[in-house]
């Protein structure tokens, strides 16, 4: 019997793979999807527990997930086991690679912050001369953003900002709280704009590929979904030079299988996709595969301040609130700072500061915490990281994962631009807090290690020049026409915005193009 052959093999079921399946099956293509993890049941695989009933009182098993700062004892099992799928780096230059292997991938757990990139990112080189422009502009991607946003039910307030294009929102025109109004007024002095958080409301508990994309794809009858399939490498037809499927291992037994397809779409997450390509030895005639790794640097609690008007419970219900401050630095070419590009903030004005910020203990500390309960401002700074050739991943042939697949080695560090930007972000935010009459309790310009934001981007970037990029503007390999990579690895620059809406839109656009090319017989 002849082996089954699908039209398209999709590797990965998260945001990018899910959107590829959603789009390709709707256009009539017969797809098979491999995911390295299981399908989870959000009712049966999670149980309500008291923290004191956990083996480690909520601390978690020591040393289990040293790179996943987001992990706690409740959620430890949702992340990829670092012993089962290790990676290597210089101990002095850590990279926090945070991974999820289950149907829906990281889209089951993302923060749902939903932004568009602007031409300050797509055409960044035109503004400051650094790096490369994307081969597309916001106008090219806008029709896809406008289709993705309603699927994910993105809420937001339209502002007309060039650096943060408005979307096809469920509009949120609720008034800002008194605290946010005061902060926004103070922020005008440094050019800040404060807007509502733009967020995917999703459906029910989730805004995931698992509940918003894959069910529709399955309903077409054209998607075969295979769980626990750990892909080792993409295979090549020696006669045509085109990809023709992939070798994978059953997660439980290690048994090896091969699946056949006329085209392959990689959406395994930025660095897993690049790892598959590097282990396959393909799509790298440019020599830049694995390079230009970037993300957004994050500083949680970059500034913590007390609102005197809200001390001792005076603020009351509805006084505080939160919001988003989009990039405001280097929007004009005439601006001069000691860094390129810019940063954004996500803030809240109704928190209670952590006890660590107070030089007190015992009863004194308890009284202090009672006084400031619900009266604190805090903000996470999110800065653009410049994509640089030297920040890269490669295969470490000396280390393999539980299925014998060689792992990634990371060489990545933040540079002077990021350090200067972080300092400006924190100093400027503290200045605005002072301007609002708030008491700055703490400020910190120290960035988390690269990778912490879980927004790893680049390593398989797109471009018009096959000598300096891996993919063309359609997320299609320059080298192999029936190979597409649709996740964050295709980014040329990332801006300070969370990338998920852009990943989804790029995947939809690339998938429509692939379907058209297959219909035309070009792939």
């Amino acid at each position, binding site marked *: 019997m002849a082996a089954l052959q699908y039209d398209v093999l999709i590797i990965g079921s998260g945001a990018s793979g899910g959107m590829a399946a959603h789009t390709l099956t709707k256009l009539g293509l017969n797809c098979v999807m491999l995911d390295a993890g299981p399908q989870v049941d959000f009712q049966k*695989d999670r149980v*309500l527990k008291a*923290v*004191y009933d*956990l083996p480690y009182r909520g*601390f978690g098993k020591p040393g289990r997930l040293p790179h996943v700062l987001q992990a706690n004892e409740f959620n430890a099992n*949702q992340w990829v086991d670092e012993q089962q799928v290790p990676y290597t780096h210089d101990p002095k230059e850590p990279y926090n690679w945070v991974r999820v292997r*289950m149907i829906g991938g990281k889209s089951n757990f993302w923060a749902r912050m939903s932004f568009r990139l602007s031409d300050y990112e797509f055409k960044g080189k035109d503004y400051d001369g650094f790096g490369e422009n994307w081969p597309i502009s916001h106008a090219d991607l806008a029709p896809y953003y406008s289709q993705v946003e309603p699927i994910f039910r993105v809420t937001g307030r339209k502002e007309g900002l060039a650096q943060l294009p408005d979307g096809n929102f469920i509009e949120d025109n609720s008034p800002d709280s008194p605290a946010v109004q005061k902060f926004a007024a103070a922020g005008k002095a440094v050019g800040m704009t404060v807007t509502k958080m733009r967020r995917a409301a999703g459906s029910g508990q989730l805004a995931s590929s698992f509940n918003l994309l894959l069910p529709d794809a399955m309903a077409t009858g054209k998607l075969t979904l295979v769980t626990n399939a750990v892909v080792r490498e993409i295979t090549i037809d020696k006669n045509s030079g085109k990809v023709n499927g992939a070798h994978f291992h059953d997660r439980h037994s290690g048994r090896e299988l091969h699946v056949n397809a006329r085209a392959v779409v990689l959406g395994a997450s930025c660095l897993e996709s690049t790892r598959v390509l590097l282990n396959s030895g393909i799509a790298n005639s440019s020599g830049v595969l694995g390079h230009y790794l970037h993300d957004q640097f994050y500083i949680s609690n970059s500034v913590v301040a007390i609102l005197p008007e809200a001390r001792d419970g005076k603020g009351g219900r509805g006084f505080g609130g939160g919001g988003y401050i989009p990039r405001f630095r280097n929007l004009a070419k005439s601006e001069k700072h000691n860094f390129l590009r810019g940063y954004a903030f996500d803030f809240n004005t109704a928190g209670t500061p952590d006890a660590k910020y107070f030089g007190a*203990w*015992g009863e004194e500390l308890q009284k202090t915490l009672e006084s400031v309960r619900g009266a604190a401002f805090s903000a996470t700074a999110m800065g653009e990281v410049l994509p640089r050739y030297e920040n890269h991943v490669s295969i470490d042939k000396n280390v393999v994962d539980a299925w014998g697949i060689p792992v990634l080695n990371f060489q990545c560090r933040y540079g002077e631009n990021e350090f200067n930007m972080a300092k400006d972000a924190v100093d400027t935010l503290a200045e605005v807090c002072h301007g609002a009459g708030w008491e700055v309790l703490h400020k910190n310009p120290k960035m988390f290690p690269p990778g912490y934001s879980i927004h790893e981007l680049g390593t398989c970037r797109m471009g018009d020049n096959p000598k300096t990029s891996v993919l063309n503007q359609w997320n299609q390999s320059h080298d192999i026409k029936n190979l597409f990579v649709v996740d964050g690895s295709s980014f040329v620059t990332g801006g300070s915005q969370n990338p998920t809406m852009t990943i989804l839109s790029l995947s939809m656009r690339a998938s429509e193009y692939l379907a058209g090319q297959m219909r035309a017989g070009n792939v």
Partner: protein
Amino acid sequence: MKRRRFFQTLAAVPAAGALVAQQEQRPAATPPGPAASTELPKLDTAPADAAAEMVPHFFDAPQFAALRKLSDILQPSLNGVPGALDAKAPEFLDFLIGDSPADRKQLYRSGLDALNASAKAHFNKPFPELDATQAATVLAPLREPWTYDAPSDPLARFLRAAKQDIRTATANSREFNLAGAAGGGGRRFGAQSLYWLPLD
């Protein structure tokens, strides 16, 4: 086998399903006593801590005595709310730190030694024997503003970690949370959450 004999044989051998049906139709002997429940029981069980005490074994006696004193100073019982000693935070930390990577073990062991040494240097007696005013002198590094990078001084670095760990070990204890519930405050926010079972 002749065709007629074949069908006679078939008729003599009941199918498996028919055999089961015959068994079910046979009247069962009635056992003595009340009728047995068809549901399996779900028994109430007790957590180990409700029936037994933790056995600390990681820290030596002077270190553990210093940890108990430090726990009581940093997180005392206030207004009827259990403190660190009520929550058995020192005993739990003896377990947790003993199960931790080497650098964390070293931080605690050398930190507790430094705490006792500082007390002896200032007041010529170990930390557990200090009064509140004397202890405050030794704990002065905790008055320094918090910074992202840990302090370079080993005692200051230890005290910062211990303050956080003692608070968490107390706030996440059964004693602390059940006392809150018994006092009418309900369960503390965050004390319960959805726990991900290991993925199959």
